[in-house]
């Protein structure tokens, strides 16, 4: 008797579970159909697959999608090379210290965006506010340099630029690099 009851109960539980999943799937499918139809008929519809890898500014300068008006000036590799030779410029590597030690733009200081609070007190002493600071990270899709300059601006730095081509373009162009902890 008891066995029968248990059996019925477990059967019941299975059917509840199946019903639950089925109703959920029906809802999601129905919502998807509505969503896709609305998206194709409404004036504000967007393409199903967007281009989120970057946007092109003037003269084929590619910046991450999150780069906005009012953010520090983005510079190309040729401008970065000119800045590299200027005496008032400091390059700032926003990547992790591990990446930095593997290789970085010669003379660059390391201020990892993701460990800003830990690194900043020490780096700040080598980073006068009247210098031009060029932040960079991996390459076009990397936003660490952008986020870093946004914080630095709050810290009172004003002459900030971002070299979005970053480490990838620098290496590709065979420009001077440093390795290990030495800038």
């Amino acid at each position: 008797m008891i066995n029968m009851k248990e059996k019925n109960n477990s059967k019941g539980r299975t059917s509840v579970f199946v019903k639950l999943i089925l109703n959920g799937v029906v809802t999601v499918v129905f919502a998807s159909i509505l969503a896709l139809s609305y998206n194709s008929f409404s004036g504000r519809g967007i393409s199903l697959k967007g281009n989120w890898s970057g946007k092109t500014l003037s003269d084929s300068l590619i910046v991450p999608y999150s780069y906005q008006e009012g953010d520090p000036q983005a510079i190309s590799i040729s401008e970065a090379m000119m800045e590299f030779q200027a005496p008032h410029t400091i390059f700032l590597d926003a990547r992790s210290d591990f990446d930095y030690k593997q290789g970085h733009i010669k003379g660059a200081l390391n201020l990892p965006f993701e460990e800003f609070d830990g690194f900043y007190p020490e780096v700040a002493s080598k980073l006068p506010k009247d210098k031009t600071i060029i932040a960079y990270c991996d390459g076009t899709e990397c936003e660490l340099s952008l986020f870093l300059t946004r914080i630095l601006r709050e810290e009172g730095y004003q002459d900030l630029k971002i070299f979005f081509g970053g480490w990838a373009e620098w290496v590709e162009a065979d420009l001077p690099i440093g390795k290990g902890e030495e800038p």
Partner: protein
Amino acid sequence: MWKGFKKIINNRYTILVFRLILGGIFIYASLDKIAYPEQFAKIVYNYKILPHSLINIFAIILPWIELLCGIFVIIGIFVESSSAILSMFLVVFIIALSVNFLRGLDINCGCFSTDPKGKEEGAILLIRDFILVAIGLQIFVNSLKKIAPDK
């Protein structure tokens, strides 16, 4: 004390109020996202969690699931699965918000508005989401009792 609390949260009128709150909030939250899919996609992008190829399709479909489940929870169709879906969403939102909080990204949550200036305090958002999860789960458990076989 505990018995009294249980009695209150299992009261049918309390459940009805819960359903109105959860459903209402999700319906309200979906409308702006449905109206401005491009802005919402940007917010999804800013969370930096989904691969780029999935951002748009997610931004198109998610608000409609919110809307439909919100309506279902209120009018009493598929209450158990809809409240389960909404609770799951809330858990995912909590995880996404926490991840970005830990990463130190200062982003617009995109909860109710796609306006980039509509920033809300992270801690308040998390508390609100936790309360809503509790409400969602209570609706879910209560509605399951109705479709479950007799004990």
